[in-house]
């Protein structure tokens, strides 16, 4: 079985790539659970992890879809901590340590270093970037 890592570098709504990444991951995992080792969000892709995303109810809710994907298949949603914090995508604990009163990132998304991605990459056959 080919193990893939999905790298998302595009923002939700304003760009298409993130949605494609979701659909690709879903298709892969539906066929073979565990075929996607993790989904890593970098560059503008970190905006996918913003829990405050609130599209109109008749529009596609990408944030919810990511959460559902994790719930259904257990695939890890990893967000580059440096890239996300500088863009205001920040967990409660990180916000706390920076004396920020609000936070925007929560489970199932995890804020990790790039090292986590590259460590997982050692056990991956294919890196697919959207």
């Amino acid at each position, binding site marked *: 079985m080919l193990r893939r890592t999905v790298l998302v570098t595009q923002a939700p709504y304003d760009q298409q790539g993130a949605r494609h990444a979701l659909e690709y991951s879903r298709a892969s995992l539906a066929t073979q659970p565990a075929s996607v080792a993790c989904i890593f969000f970098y*560059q503008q892709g970190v905006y996918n992890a913003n829990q405050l995303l609130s599209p109109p109810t008749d529009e596609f809710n990408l944030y919810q879809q990511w959460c559902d994907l994790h719930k259904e298949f257990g695939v890890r949603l990893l967000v580059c901590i440096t890239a996300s914090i500088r863009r205001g995508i920040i967990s409660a604990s990180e916000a706390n340590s920076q004396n920020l009163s609000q936070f925007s990132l929560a489970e199932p998304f995890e804020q990790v270093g*790039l090292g986590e991605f*590259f460590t997982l*990459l*050692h056990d991956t056959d294919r*890196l697919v*970037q959207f």
Partner: protein
Amino acid sequence: MARIIIRMTHAPYGNAFAAEGLDFAFAATNYGHEAVLLFEGEGVLQLKAGQQPLPGEKNQFKRLKAAPLFDVEEIYVCVESRNAWELSDQELQVDCQCVNTTALLQLLRNADHVVTF
């Protein structure tokens, strides 16, 4: 360990591609992978000497000069892009190898992964 080609396709400053692309490359070697830089299109402008970024912005040229210190030793430049942007030898001060399209495609074929910034 994977051989990762990192395509740099944007000019520095005015966007996050150049700086974060390099962060990505340096993290790759830090965690046991091989990172190769390939400059294409307007990305070749990252190699231009004499950059003066705004205060608070990292100097992309200086970072690229220091790339070997981060174990990023293979740097390639698309010769057509270099010519299109009229980069002279004086301006191209980073240690790199110019490649034509055939060689460029071969580089991509030989890589384990390709990431584009």
